[in-house]
């Protein structure tokens, strides 16, 4: 412990801890350095979730199956909503698969700060690692459900519903990526705000439910073509993704280039705002949580 003389040249320090730094100071290189941690979190999420359950990962399959059955009954048999000429089981299942991925990304990233408060309070690592690992571990779940969908498509192929295998299938990863991006972006914005105002987490459950009804998950976009609620569906950036996802798989429905582009821009925007807000909150949230 010595006093440095005032004439020594400025020294190099690796880390400088200061009050709020610039709004735009993002440290993505640091996130990259912690990539091993990210993978370990993905693994932990996956391994730990189904410990001490009998069916284990089978739950990934059961859940969409039951939802499909429910939709089949409610929207198909009771409400009699058409499915654009797509086999109803495949129609509902495809909608549920992509929607589940979005809602999982959104709800699981939205509680980043609160559910990890204990660990964040003790040790530093780039906080962004957590929501990123959530999005990745949900991709695994999406993969399983997508596999289930393919199995059903093959089963139906034997029943005389041909599989439209074409170049559009190459778009699917992009659509999934945009879906993940919107979920992540909205999720981290909400997680940043809930550190101070917990009310938002109650609103979110409700919003996700509502969101599904203004997204063409259980009905085709064409079904609402002439109603006065069409605008509500149109401004929803998830609409075009869901429709395009179905179009790629079945070759039926509507795909609009500007719609997908709109979703892409929306994604870039929420991710941008999200990381900035997140970055700002992560420094001091331990004092308010």
């Amino acid at each position, binding site marked *: *412990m*010595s*006093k*440095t003389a005032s004439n*020594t040249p400025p*020294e*190099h*320090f*690796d*880390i*400088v*801890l*200061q*009050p*709020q730094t610039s709004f735009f100071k993002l440290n993505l290189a640091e996130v990259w350095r*912690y990539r*091993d*941690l990210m993978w*370990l*979190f993905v*693994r*932990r999420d996956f*391994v*730990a979730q189904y*410990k*001490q359950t009998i069916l284990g990962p089978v739950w990934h399959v059961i859940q969409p199956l039951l939802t499909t059955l429910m939709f089949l009954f409610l929207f198909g048999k009771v409400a009699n909503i058409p499915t654009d000429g797509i086999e109803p089981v495949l129609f509902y299942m495809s909608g549920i698969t992509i929607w589940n991925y979005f809602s999982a990304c959104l709800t699981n990233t939205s509680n980043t700060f609160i559910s990890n408060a204990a*660990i*964040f*309070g*003790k*040790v*530093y*690592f780039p906080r962004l690692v957590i929501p990123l690992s959530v999005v990745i571990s949900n991709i695994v779940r999406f993969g399983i459900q997508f596999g289930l969908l393919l199995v059903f498509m093959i089963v139906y192929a034997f029943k005389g519903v041909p599989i439209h295998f074409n170049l559009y299938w190459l778009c699917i990863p992009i659509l999934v990526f945009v879906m993940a991006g919107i979920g992540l972006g909205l999720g981290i914005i909400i997680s940043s705000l809930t550190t*101070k*105002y*917990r009310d938002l987490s109650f609103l979110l459950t409700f919003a996700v439910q509502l969101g599904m009804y203004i997204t063409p998950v259980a009905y085709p976009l064409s079904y609402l073509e002439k109603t006065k609620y069409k605008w509500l569906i149109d401004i929803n950036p998830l609409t075009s993704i869901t429709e395009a996802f179905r179009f790629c798989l079945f070759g039926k429905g509507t795909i609009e280039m500007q719609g997908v582009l709109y979703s892409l821009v929306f994604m870039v925007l929420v991710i941008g705002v999200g990381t900035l807000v997140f970055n700002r909150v992560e*420094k*001091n949230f*331990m*004092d*308010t949580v």
Partner: protein
Amino acid sequence: MSDIVIKVEGLSKQYRLGQIGTGSLAHDINRLWYKLRGKEDPYLKVGEENDRTKKAESDYVWALRDVNFDIKQGEVVGIIGRNGAGKSSLLKILSRTTSPTTGQVKLKGRIASLLEVGTGFHPELSGRENIFLNGAILGMTKSEIKSKFDEIVAFSGVERYIDTPVKRYSSGMYVRLAFAVAAHLQSEILIVDEVLAVGDAEFQKKCLGKMKDVSTQQGRTVLFVSHNMGAVRGLCTMGILMQHGKVEQQGPVNNVIAKYLINPSAVFNNILKDPNDSIVIESVAFKNSAGESTQNYKIGDDLILEINYFAKDRFEQPYFWIGVESQFGSLFGANMLIDGKRPAEVNGKGTIACRFKNLPLMPQTYSVWIGARASDGRTGLTKAKEVGFFNIVSNIQDLSAAESDHAEILANDSTPVIINYEWQMPDGKTIPVNLFN
């Protein structure tokens, strides 16, 4: 080029008292209003110094106020102070879990903290998986952990259970594994906070040894926060005494500890009252044979400990025990479980005292622990707790023929117990030594 690795400059941290939520929106809006007009944050001006005992008059409190210090590479620095003096806030900022309100900290190299062990341990995962997870959380890469894996497992001593989920571990095993991971971190600066409270004596010794190695052999810097003055003294070379959010003193560890212990206020009174205890220890007085309260004694003095307790219930024939520890570990004590003497009953307020006669101790600092058990000898009525310290302040040179300063320095670090002995010299002369008489 100096070798300063931690440079703390004008560091302050402000906290809001009371309930967050009510009124915070109004404060936020007010803050924004000031900011928009280009004025300074109005709430930074208010705030009081950090003193638990005074009732707060404003909603904001300064946990740290204008803290400055430098730490050089390879130093082991003990940070001491009362509860609420700002130690934890300082460590939180250093370990980057929160950021300062004003001022800055500059660090060289990676910093890893051991604020509370087992951070990020997932109960469902095995010990092996948790080593990797915990290591990665603390900033190691997968390959770094792999290369240290065998060493970590060997150090923790839980080889047999390495593939068992950690939820089946005993708390001791849990801590061993967690400390093992942290102790093998590749960081240049290590922060350790009160982790040694758990784990058995053998493991505690191992941890202290490891921390000493880390600093002396690998040249890494260690910040150690503890209430155990024996451990601080044994481990650290430098000390920082915090009080009311400020640095009260810094320098060689012995001077800093001495300053802390001279502090006349009843340092421990508020820590003692553990509401979970069946017999609550309200205060402990350290007195000399003249009945004066003091923490400083001479070699051969009597030490009287007066324990003022409050028994929440009526307990028949409870066992009390008192233990005295030096920097090297447990030394001696008075234990009713061994001597068989015990009070007929305790009920409500009361005092129990113990007089240790003719302390045969070297001039060092000793800590006192107490506890109580029910008449079955097993059920804890008062959890074991450290209740205070006392110093032996005799000048060793006054008692011996030694002339050099070495005697004084060695006495600080030597085995603490003094007994009388005889030297048999080469010329056949027998010389009795009675340092203690």
